[in-house]
């Protein structure tokens, strides 16, 4: 089971990483932020799967932290583009 969960983690990581092409291609800055946001959500899923696969429950705390702050870059982007 641990092997399967870890494989799924790798698969999800690879899947969302492909989306990072949008960071380079754009065209709008919002598209670049979208790719980062997708990587954030994917990262949370990967961490939860790794936590279950390895049995290190503290990794769930990393996922929790990531879920809390993954919005930050996007929120800062919107707030600065509103201000200027």
């Amino acid at each position, binding site marked *: 089971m641990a092997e399967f969960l870890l494989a799924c983690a*790798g698969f999800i990581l690879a899947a969302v990483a492909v989306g990072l092409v949008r*960071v380079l291609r754009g065209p709008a800055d919002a598209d670049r932020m979208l790719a980062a946001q997708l990587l954030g959500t994917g990262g949370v899923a990967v961490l939860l799967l790794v936590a279950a696969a390895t049995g290190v429950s*503290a990794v769930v*705390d990393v996922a929790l*932290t990531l879920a*809390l702050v993954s*919005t930050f870059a996007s929120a800062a982007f919107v707030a600065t583009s509103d201000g200027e």
Partner: protein
Amino acid sequence: MTVAWAVDLGLAALIVAVAVATVTARGTFAAAVGFVACGLLLALAWVQLAAVDVALTEAAIGALTGMLLLGAAAHLHPTEAGMVAERPGVALRGAATLLCAVVTGALAIVVLSLPDPAPSLAPAAAAHLPATELGNPVTAVLMAYRAIDTLVEKVVVLVALLAVWSLAPDPRWGGRPGASRRRQRDDALAFLAQLLPPIGIVAGVYLVWTSADHPGGAFPGSTLLAAMWLLARMAGLVDAPAVSRRWLRIALVAGPVVFLAVGLAGFAWADRFLAYPDGWAKPLILGIEAAMTVSIAVTLAMLVEGPPERSLSPDAQRAAGERSSSGLEPEP
């Protein structure tokens, strides 16, 4: 085992690819987003390296760094077009490539020829863990074995904040940092800024509290606290305090002062700087961590806010004047 190996290899390749994009991307904003992605992937790498405490810190600090760099990229956007002409010529680029290849190669050789079995301080850290009454060896290193490093680092961060503040033009000194933001009605950001901080504050305090026995720590915990305040600030729910505020100054120095006081008290009760008396290590460490959490959270938040940009309002100036007559404020 092979699955874990493949995941590690893929993650490492991904980090390198994103780093290449960050360094070579055409636009600064794309590079900044690339850096945010790179930080996130590094947090995953720390988990794979069995360093969960570091992963927590990387994930939390990465959000603040990302905010800072994305904001700067947006602010400096007008300068970007003119800088293309300053790109160095082919000769310099070639030489730089060569130099970097040599550095990378040398480091790779070092990595491949690291001694086996590796030297480790883990047994020594484990041996003295009962004396500190802590369960998490990383916290023990930060707060007991190498407490002097943590104390000095705390001071360095404070000095960095002083340096940032000192960039303010003279008439703005003592004022509020950053631009003023007005809250917009029915704003999704304001909604998020009202809903997320209660959860984030609980999570931050939890990370500090749990760090005695499990991965966590004062640094990721206080970073989360700072992040939650910055979210409310971005949404316009709160305003940045004027840098001349007395409570702000007290909050900034509380951590180092408590740390230093406990350290000096070590001379009295254990004959050495930063030594804890037997049986009192854990309560003292938790006390220092509590004060440090407040100070680091405020320092990090003010570092993101930057130098004072708005002059004090007339009545606030009057209040500052009263304080300066009490000796706290130097007159300009």
